[in-house]
């Protein structure tokens, strides 16, 4: 036995040196061989995604990327027109017929088919509503519970019975995707029998979602790519909807994930992808402008980035202080410096992109004033409200000086307060704006401290426990229906984990908010929404700060026909109208 080991040892030494000199050159040979093989040009529409979709299960996939994939498959009854943003029929054949006495909506359905060829019937709509009720699906049930009864007289008509007329019926209930009974029937039955039905439904692994949309999912290679093919049974092919003749004119779409946006931009310039479905930072623009085979799109965004105050405790329970802060904050600087000029001024809590509901003449505090005037105006507001300083920010000769700490009307010095912001990795803009707001407030002698916090921890303290002075948060994708104003400022929502984070309660506002929910007529509701915005901008529970534009880029060598809309060109209309350049 001994000699055996002995030879092995020797062999180990000799082979070891040979091994190591073979190993390294082998790698480089491999590299050369690999690099000379070029992919053949093919006509796939290649789209880059910032992150892999969370899940293909409609009930779990709530992140942006999952919604992008699933919105090509599952379709709603009605949808917004890309230009006018009005609600237009989609899976439904025509506008619903409203019967005021029985307060019912009757909707006739289009002759559509599911991607497996079976017919889309009213049966599926009834099943979908029942599913919302059985599982109390988050975000759906709270809206659909207004429909206390639904019946389907024939396969292509559905009658919705409402308790009371609701303005958000069309905008929030009818725009919810409908699922097929065949696909989910037995999953639902099995899930309801378990102890945690919703969790079982969400954990159901969906490999081939069945929908009525323009595309169908053929293959998902985890961590690498997602392949979708044209849905032959798409009801929209050839129809002219929303001012566009729908296709889809592309047979295959390939989604690829890119870890960092820099790499994605390089891939775009190199031609690896045709479109990067994510907001591009301003830094890339000079470079991309120089490329003639890349088109740039600047669209308004339905978003709200704001500075929220805690009205429940000093110092921000005092409206005058909030107005002073609104005056001294330099929105112009944020727009030009932080957003590098690519943004729209945010005067009201409704973004200007949502042009129907946006109220242009609300109180704007310091729009466009230079630094000295802003400080002077803020000091005037504060002093009339009884705030004092040993050395005020504005000297007798009108020059702006370094103030001493501000004193409350009661004479006591204002104690330290913290402005909470999300961490830099989550959103570098908000973290930086936080530091700038801190500087502007210190110009008034206020002891302000911006402190970034982990996103989940931040929401827990602000939304859950209400233990905060001020915070900077934002909603990147606000629904185009302004009902969210009610959610944010309704006094009853001022409870732990409720959406009224700043603790605003104004009976007059509550009354209007309830009224607007019931008014069906858009013009009438618009006036109510205008009044709501006027009240909010007067009381300032939230100070709107900025609204960045959506900057997107596409390669124009292979495809053209992207449709611009609020929130950018990544929408169903583009998918249905993009066609190869021939």
């Amino acid at each position, binding site marked *: 036995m*001994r000699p055996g080991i*002995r030879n092995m*040892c*020797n062999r180990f030494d000799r082979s070891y040196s040979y091994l190591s000199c073979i190993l390294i050159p082998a790698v480089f040979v491999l590299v050369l061989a690999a690099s000379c093989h070029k992919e053949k040009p093919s006509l796939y529409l290649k789209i880059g995604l910032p992150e892999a979709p969370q899940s293909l299960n409609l009930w779990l996939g709530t992140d942006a990327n999952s919604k992008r994939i699933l919105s090509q498959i599952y379709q709603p009854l009605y949808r917004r027109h890309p230009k006018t943003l009005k609600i237009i029929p989609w899976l439904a054949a025509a506008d619903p017929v409203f019967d005021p006495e029985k307060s019912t909506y009757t909707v006739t359905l289009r002759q559509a088919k599911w991607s497996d060829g079976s017919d889309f019937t009213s049966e599926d709509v009834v099943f979908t509503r029942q599913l919302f009720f059985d599982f109390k699906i988050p975000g759906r049930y709270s809206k659909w519970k207004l429909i206390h009864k639904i019946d389907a007289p024939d396969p292509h008509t559905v009658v919705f019975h409402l308790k009371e007329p609701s303005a958000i019926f069309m905008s929030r209930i009818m725009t919810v995707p409908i699922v097929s009974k065949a696909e989910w029937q037995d999953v639902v039955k099995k899930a309801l029998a378990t102890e945690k039905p919703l969790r079982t439904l969400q954990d159901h692994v969906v490999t081939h979602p069945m929908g009525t949309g323009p595309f169908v999912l053929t293959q998902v290679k985890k961590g690498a790519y997602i392949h979708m093919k044209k849905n032959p049974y798409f009801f929209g092919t050839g129809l002219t909807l929303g001012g566009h003749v729908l296709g889809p004119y592309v047979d295959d779409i390939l989604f690829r994930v890119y870890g960092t946006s820099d790499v994605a931009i390089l891939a775009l310039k190199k031609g690896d992808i045709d479109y990067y479905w994510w907001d591009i930072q301003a830094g890339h623009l000079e470079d991309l402008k120089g490329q003639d085979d890349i088109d740039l799109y600047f669209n308004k965004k339905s978003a709200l980035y704001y500075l929220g105050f805690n009205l429940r405790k000093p110092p921000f329970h005092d409206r005058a202080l909030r107005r002073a802060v609104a005056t001294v904050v330099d929105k112009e600087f944020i727009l030009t410096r932080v957003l590098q000029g690519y943004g729209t001024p945010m005067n009201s809590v409704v973004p200007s992109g949502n042009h129907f509901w946006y109220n242009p003449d609300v109180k704007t505090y310091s729009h466009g004033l230079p630094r000295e005037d802003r400080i002077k105006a803020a000091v005037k507001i504060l002093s009339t409200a009884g705030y004092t300083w040993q050395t005020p920010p504005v000297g007798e000769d009108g020059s702006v000086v370094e103030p001493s700490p501000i004193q409350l009307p009661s004479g006591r010095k204002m104690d330290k307060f913290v402005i909470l912001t999300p961490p830099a990795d989550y959103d570098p803009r908000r973290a930086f704006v936080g530091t700038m707001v801190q500087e502007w407030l210190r110009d008034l002698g206020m002891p302000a401290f911006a402190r970034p916090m982990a996103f989940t921890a931040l929401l827990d303290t602000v939304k859950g426990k209400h233990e905060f002075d001020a915070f900077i948060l934002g909603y990147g994708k606000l629904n185009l229906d302004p009902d969210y104003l009610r959610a944010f400022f309704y006094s009853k929502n001022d409870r732990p984990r409720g959406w009224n984070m700043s603790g605003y309660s104004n009976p007059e506002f509550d009354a209007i908010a309830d009224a607007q929910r019931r008014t069906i007529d858009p013009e009438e509701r618009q006036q109510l929404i205008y009044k709501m915005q006027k009240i909010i901008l007067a009381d300032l529970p939230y100070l709107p700060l900025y609204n960045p534009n959506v900057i997107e880029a596409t390669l124009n060598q292979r495809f053209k026909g992207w449709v611009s809309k609020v929130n950018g060109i990544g929408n169903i209309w583009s998918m249905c109208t993009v066609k190869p350049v021939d």
Partner: protein
Amino acid sequence: MSLLSVKNLSVGYQTPAGVIRAIDNVCFDLETGRPLGFVGESGCGKTTIGMALMGLLPDNGTVLGGDILFRGKNLACFSEKQWRKIRGRDMAMIFQAAMNALNPVYRVADQIREAIITHHPEAAEADLDSRLEELFDLVDMPLERAWDYPHEYSGGMKQRAVIAMALACSPKLVIADEPTTALDVIVQDQILKGLRAIQARLKIGLIFISHDIAVVASVCDRVCVMYGGQIVEAGTTDEVFSSPRHPYTRMLLGAYLSLDSKPDIRVPEMGETPDLFQADGRCRFSVNCPERSADCSSSRPKWIEVSKTHRVFCCNEALIRSINETL
């Protein structure tokens, strides 16, 4: 024709402070099959001679002059390739620190076989095994221990293994640099007996380097005494040790307290260290020599024949006269 003859060999070490001439104009001859001893205090350059003969001087060591004639070839100007051909085959060396002279991660038998394979690549397995057996008998070591690892050997066995490795290709010249210093007396005695028997039987030219006079006396029949890189006295063992002529040899013997002799020779306390940078060939022991005279510091010492086989390297006129009178 002598196996090895060294003619005024000088070896120096480059150091930041200049060139140390560790060996200064050393000459000696070695017949085939005769054991020659080198004795001297530590730092007198005896190990450097061994290393110079094997061409194993460290990076900063160089042969400054003189030549080494070994079986007709002058090693002084050998290239590394030429050295490699004869090292291990015609000449071999046994080192003092036997404790880690063997590579710890290879089996002893492998290392010994390697010594043979290097010079006889075409050797068949059977020959290698038989040669290994012979070697282990030669140093009387049990063969089954051959495949153990060095750390499983005792000090004595390690030294025997090193000796076996040195004799692997039956070299004509073996240089043993203090082979037994690290061992206890009993094992030392066994090793020396073994070494003497092997040297006699295989007619190997042995150069035995040690600081221990008794050990050199028991192994070698001719000896050279060294001080400060110079050979001060050379001759047969009994000539040099019974009637030492050179003051340093006498002092060296005086320091060696044997049981029977009366310590009549006063042992002077050692003074300065020799200046090894000196390159003019003057006697380096003069700085400590009790019988120093004026011409010691001026003229260069030369070889004085005390007898045909016994000579002294000195320049002290009084001493020379006393030697000539006794002739």
